């Protein structure tokens, strides 16, 4: 109900500003993305997109930003059609203060990782879940975002009343992963337990060659864990939980001549974890997270990034579904050619514990100022039970075209 009031308030504020408005500026992006599995030539994706965007300066200090996405993909079971609003927000800027209210996306942190707890995903296609840009899979939230400068410091606050969680694939869909179920029991649906509110605070400043940010968030777990209680002999009532936990962390970036070091340190407090226990099945624990990355430039414009992400759940036991510790490596290289009209890229993501990996070589060609063509491969390796290894027989070639008006 609360989330329905937000658009109404936006419309009211919008109506007040229209009188003094500049003409709105429209943009449109048309795109097709096609993927073919290399094993058997089956078309895995034939995604067609129409993405209109609007920016309307209602006054020098007030802007209305809106964007939408129309999607049609006859090949993707479970995600054939979509008509979604991606942004609808009023952005006001005063002396030292800025406020943005409405449907929007916010990204904090120096990596797409542990400090991105406002990221709610739509991971229908798990092969693309790990790939930048996350923009496509991120579900925007109705948010109030405020920013104020205090000298060299900047304070930002986020608040969202919306109950929006990851939209995971359902039974029968290509990337459905069934939740762990105790053997020998019948499960009955116990509904959901969801904490609605999301709150975030960030204090940041640039200090000499350093960027520093201190972050606090209280957010619900976006993916589900399942609480089970007895409902009779051999019957368990299962409740889907998205309960709130605290995130405290800091992020930094430091330039040092030809390299930029960046990192995050954070802790999750009292987060829910799934266990193998038939009764209960959810246990709270803390989690420690660290990311360290380095961005380097070679031969003038060859950009190379290496990033290591480590997370540890000190209280985890063998009962926990999630491993006690996990290290992930990310390698990215990008080489622009011919005055940036062609870009060669390679992304590699590896899980150290499972020994699995994703390799993504790709090429992008700006055929004109408005038309971009792209092509590449998604190559998966590793044991069949690992995050990437389970797609090892579904390597694919992809190609895309995007035209912008």
């Amino acid at each position, binding site marked *: 109900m609360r989330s329905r009031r937000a658009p109404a308030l936006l419309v009211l504020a919008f109506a007040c500003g229209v009188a003094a408005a*500049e003409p709105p500026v429209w*943009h449109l*992006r048309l795109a097709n993305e096609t993927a073919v599995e290399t094993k058997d030539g089956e078309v895995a994706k034939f995604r067609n997109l129409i993405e209109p965007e609007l*920016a309307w*300066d209602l006054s*020098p200090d007030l*802007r209305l930003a809106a964007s939408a996405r129309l999607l049609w993909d006859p090949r993707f079971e479970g995600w054939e059609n979509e008509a979604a609003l991606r942004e609808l927000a009023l*952005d006001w*800027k005063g*002396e*030292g203060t*800025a406020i943005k209210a409405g449907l929007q*996306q*916010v*990204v*904090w*942190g120096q990596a*797409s990782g542990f400090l991105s707890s406002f990221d709610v995903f739509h991971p229908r296609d798990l092969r693309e879940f790990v790939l*930048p*840009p*996350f*923009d496509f899979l991120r579900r925007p939230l109705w948010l109030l975002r405020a*920013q104020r*400068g205090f000298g060299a410091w*900047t304070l*930002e606050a986020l608040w969202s009343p919306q109950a929006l969680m990851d939209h995971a694939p359902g039974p029968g869909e290509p990337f459905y992963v069934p939740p762990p179920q105790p053997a020998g029991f019948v499960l009955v649906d116990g509904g959901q337990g969801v904490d609605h509110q999301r709150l975030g605070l960030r204090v*940041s400043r*640039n200090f*000499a*060659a350093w*960027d520093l940010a201190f972050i606090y968030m209280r957010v619900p777990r976006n993916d589900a864990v399942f609480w089970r209680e007895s409902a009779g002999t051999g019957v368990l009532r299962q409740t889907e939980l998205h309960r709130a936990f605290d995130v405290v962390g800091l992020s930094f*970036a*430091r*330039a*040092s*001549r*030809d*390299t*930029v070091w*960046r990192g995050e340190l954070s802790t999750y407090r009292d987060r829910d974890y799934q266990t193998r226990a038939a009764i209960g099945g959810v246990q709270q624990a803390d989690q420690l997270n660290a990311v360290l990355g380095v*961005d*380097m*430039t070679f031969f*003038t*414009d060859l950009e190379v990034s290496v990033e290591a992400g480590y997370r540890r759940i000190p209280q985890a036991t063998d009962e926990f579904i999630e491993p006690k510790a996990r290290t992930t490596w990310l390698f990215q290289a990008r080489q*622009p050619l011919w*005055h*940036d*009209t062609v870009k060669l890229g390679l992304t590699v993501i590896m899980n150290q514990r499972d020994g699995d990996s994703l390799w993504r070589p790709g090429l992008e060609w*700006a055929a*004109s*100022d*408005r038309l*971009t063509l792209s092509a590449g491969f998604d190559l998966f390796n590793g044991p069949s039970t690992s995050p990437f290894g389970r797609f090892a027989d579904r390597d694919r070639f992809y190609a895309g075209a*995007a035209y*912008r*008006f």
Partner: protein
Amino acid sequence: MRLRIFTLSILLIAAPALHAAPTGEEIMIAVSNRDVGRDERGEVQMVLEDSHGEVRERRLLRLRLTEGTEEKLRIQFLFPPDVRDAAFLLYDHPDRDDDRWLYLPSVRKAKRISGAQKYRNFLGTDFTYDDLGGREPYEDTHVLEGEAVMDGRPVYRLRSTPKESENPYAYRQVWVWKEAPIVLKEEYYDRHDKLRKRMRVLKLDRVQGIWTVRAREMVDVQEQHRTALTFVLVRYNTGLSPDLFREQALDRPVP
């Protein structure tokens, strides 16, 4: 600082009369310290032309703010559409390495970028990030090689040799206008002593009493590639807010 600029300007103007030419370093310090107001706002239109005659366009909004000895530059990309609303922020420090950030709408956050990026082409043009601002006089050794007249304007001719070894250019020939310390022409020589690029100012104008470059070009002689820049809607001292020059504000496009 103002006293220093005044002294150097007097030095530049008076030098010919006194038959005591300023040193190369003094000339380049005067170029760097030229009074161009507290702030500046303008649009830049770029036309890129390759050796086959294929033409591409770029448009951007350029905002500059001077705070004491520090200069801040914000560039917001307007065209082509795939980089629209991307933004580049530079803090040009006179006494240490500059700070640089790049905001990309696709990742929705500003990212600090290293100083090594200053040698790469800016948006595929023939200008590097370094060419567009941020190079301090002390980063090169400047030697005055003579005087000349160029397009009817008296100029000093200098040779500027970068002190850092990783700079892709061995040296630059620089022509500085005597009347107002503005670089009118520059030639960039590579490590094999071959001419690589040539920059020329095509149009100069006074805007609010300040000499302003309205058009210039950079030609990559070796790659047969040319970039022409036109500066439009240039205004000085418009009262730009320092808030626009915060890294955290890059995700808000300037109207």
